[in-house]
C-alpha cells in the first residue's frame, strides 16, 4: 500500500492505493467517482477517459501511482452545483445520449477539443472523439451536440436558449 495525493476536480485528495491499481481503479474504487467507466480495459474504447494535466488520457492506461501530484478532471467536475456544463446541456438537447456508457468520456474529449479549437469543423470533431467508441448513437448526434456546445461556449457559455 502507498499513500498518494493528487488534485481531482479542483480538490486536493489523498488515497491509499495498491501498487497494482490503475488511475481508473483509484477514481472509481478509492474516491468513488464512478462517472468514469471501464469498457475494454485495454486502451481502445475511451469510456475511461479523464483529463490529466489538460490532456485526455485513458485512465485504464495510467497506473495510480503515476498520478501523484497530477491535476485530474473527471465527468463529476464538469457541472457546477446547480448547472450542467454547456457541453453536457448540448448533449441532452441534441439527443446525443442513449445508454450513456460512452458519454462521460465523450464529454471530456469534447472539452479538451473545444479548449484547443473553439470552432472545429465536423471532421475535426470526429477526429477529436476518435478515441471514444459509442455502440449506440452512430456518432452523428454526438457531433451535432459538440457543434452546438461550441456555439454556447463561444457566446459565453451561459445562453439558456
Amino acid at each position, binding site marked *: 500500500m502507498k499513500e498518494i495525493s493528487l488534485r481531482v476536480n479542483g480538490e486536493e485528495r489523498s488515497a491509499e492505493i495498491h*501498487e497494482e491499481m490503475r488511475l481508473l481503479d483509484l477514481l472509481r474504487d478509492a474516491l468513488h467517482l464512478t462517472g468514469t467507466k471501464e469498457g475494454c480495459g485495454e*486502451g481502445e474504447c475511451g469510456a475511461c477517459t479523464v483529463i490529466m494535466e489538460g490532456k485526455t488520457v485513458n485512465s485504464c492506461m495510467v497506473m495510480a501511482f503515476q498520478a501523484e501530484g497530477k491535476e485530474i478532471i473527471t465527468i463529476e467536475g464538469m457541472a457546477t452545483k446547480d448547472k450542467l456544463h454547456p457541453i453536457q446541456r448540448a448533449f441532452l438537447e441534441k439527443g446525443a445520449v442513449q445508454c450513456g456508457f460512452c458519454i462521460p468520456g465523450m464529454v471530456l474529449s469534447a472539452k479538451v477539443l473545444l479548449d484547443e479549437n473553439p470552432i472545429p469543423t465536423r471532421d475535426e470533431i470526429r*477526429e477529436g472523439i*476518435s*478515441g471514444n467508441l459509442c455502440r449506440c448513437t452512430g456518432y452523428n448526434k454526438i457531433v451535432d451536440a459538440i457543434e452546438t456546445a461550441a456555439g454556447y461556449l463561444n457566446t459565453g457559455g451561459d445562453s439558456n436558449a
Partner: protein
Amino acid sequence: MAPLSVYRGAELQQVLKLLQDHQGKVCIIAGGTDIILKLREKKLEPEVLLDISGINELKGISEYSKQLADTGLDGLKRITEQTMIKIGAGVTFSEIAKSPFFSQNLKGLADAALSVGSPQIRNAATIGGNICNASPAADIIPVLLALEAEAIVRSREKEETMSLQGFILDKGSVKLLPNQLLCSIAFSSLKENQSLGFAKLGLRKALAISRIAVAAFVEVGDNAFKNVRLASGACGKIPKREYEVEACLEGKAINDGSIEAAAELFKQVLKERLRGRSGAEYKGEAVKGVFKEALRKALGYQNI
C-alpha cells in the same frame, strides 16, 4: 513472487542508479500504453515498476550541432558541422505531431506520430516506449530508420550512441543492458532538397494497429532521385530498411515510370519475404500503393 514496489523517478541520475542497483528486476514505465496490459496479463512480473514520465531530461525536442570529421579526396581531414535534431525518449506522439520542427520537409515524422492510436493514446505514448517495445507495427520506427537516426543510451557510468537499426534486435527486443536507459533519438536535420514522407494502410484511422507502413526519405537533384532511403513497418518481423528498392530508384529521373518500376520491385521483394505466410499476396499488392503514397508525399513536401 515479491510484492510489486513502485517508484516515480524525479531525476535521470536517480533512475540510472536504481537501474544499476536492481539490475534485471526493474520494469520501466512511461506512457503505460503497452506495459500496463503486459502487467495485467502477467506477461511481465517485475519487482520494481519505475515511472520515468516525470523526468525533464527525457523531454523536449531540440537542435544541436555535431562535429563530423571526414577525410576528403585530397587526403586532408576536415571538420564539418552538422545540425542534429534530438527527440527525448519521453516525448509523446501528440508532442511530435504538434512540433514546429516537424512541418515542411520533416512532416513525415508528424504524419507517422498522428497515425498512431487515438488522441488519448498519443497523449500518453512516448517515442522511447514505442522503440523499446519494438513491435513489428511500431509506426514511428520506419520514419526513424529512413532518417538513419541514432539511439542515445545511458547507464550510470557512460553515454553511448548507436544506430537505431543496430539498437532494434528483434521483435520486442532491443540492445539495452539492464542498467541502461534509452534517453533520446537524434538524426541530421534535412537540407532543402531532402524530405521525408510516410504512408500507412490501417484498419481505421484511430487505433489502427499498423498493417503496412512505408517511410521514404528522398534527396532530389536535377529532377532525379539523388539519394533514397526507404523503410517499412509490418512487412516482416521488425521494421526494416528496404535497400533493394532504394537501389532501384537511386539516380533515376523522377517520373511515373521509375516510381512504378520501384513499386513493382517492392511487391516482389515483399512477396518473397512473406512467402508461405497468410496475406503475402495481399500485402505485396498493397505495399505498392502505400509506397507510392509515401514517395508522393515526400516529393510534395518539397514542392516537386
